[in-house]
């Protein structure tokens, strides 16, 4: 049996689903929706492509454009990507990690 990690955390049971929790009483904030995360990925892709048009950039242009393509597909919902650079991917992981922490903290 392979060794498990944080990547194996499942979607939490319903009482610990942070995306279903009511807004924060103090700030009114709530957990980001998938649609918002997708919009963020599209924005990130667009900004990367725009900065790649500049003459002098402090990164490898080919790598940046490849990342932009990944983020664009993630933003359109056509292809899932597993990168910490993606708001959609991190939203999924945050859902599982935060829910697991919530259950842990409640269980003491």
């Amino acid at each position: 049996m392979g060794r498990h990690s944080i990547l194996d955390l499942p979607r939490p049971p319903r009482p610990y689903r942070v995306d279903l929790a009511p807004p924060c009483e103090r700030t009114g904030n709530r957990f980001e929706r998938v649609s918002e995360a997708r919009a963020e990925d599209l924005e990130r892709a667009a900004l990367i492509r725009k900065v790649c048009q500049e003459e002098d950039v402090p990164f490898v242009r080919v790598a940046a454009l490849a990342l932009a393509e990944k983020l664009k597909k993630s933003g359109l919902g056509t292809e899932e990507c597993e990168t910490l650079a993606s708001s959609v991917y991190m939203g999924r992981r945050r859902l599982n990690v935060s829910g697991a922490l919530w259950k842990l903290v409640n269980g003491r």
Partner: protein
Amino acid sequence: MAGSPNTFTIFPQNWVFTAEQLASKNPRRLLKAFLSVLNRLGLRRAGGYLFVAIHGEFDEATGLFHLHLHGVADQQMLAIIDRLRKLPNFRCRRSKGDTKLRVRIGRKPLTNLPYPLTYILQSYWPRRWRGTIEGVTRRGTVRHRIPEPFHTVLLLWLDRWSLTDITLLVGLSAGPRGLERAASKLGKAKKS
């Protein structure tokens, strides 16, 4: 510090990097060094559990990324975290412009759950204003998007790593059954 688990934030002094420096930083090594410090403070004898994740923000005025840790721990581990304050890398130095503590531990019971916990692992790294007002260094509370090309530099750096590279679990195991406290009495750190 009797009571429930709580959240904390740690700003190591030597976790401030230019974009060029960030590109060469390995988050696993940063966490390994942090764990070594905790071990020297008695982590292995403490028992309990701790979960931390690397996060950061950008200061446009200086072009520097300020990396830090958000985490949650039970009271046994929080006592170890508290000892960090005495170390030079974690000491608040007002003469150097520090206005807030570099080791901030929640003292009141956690409320508004789950939101304090969703703050630990974040998908967005902001730009925050940092400057001097009437001779005192201040850090803005409003989060803005990091300007280009620095945001692309950051995203490319993040793209190189996995969730297991930016998180550290101590006294916990993670798997299909969720997060479980380690059976051993000794605080055993696991690659998350």
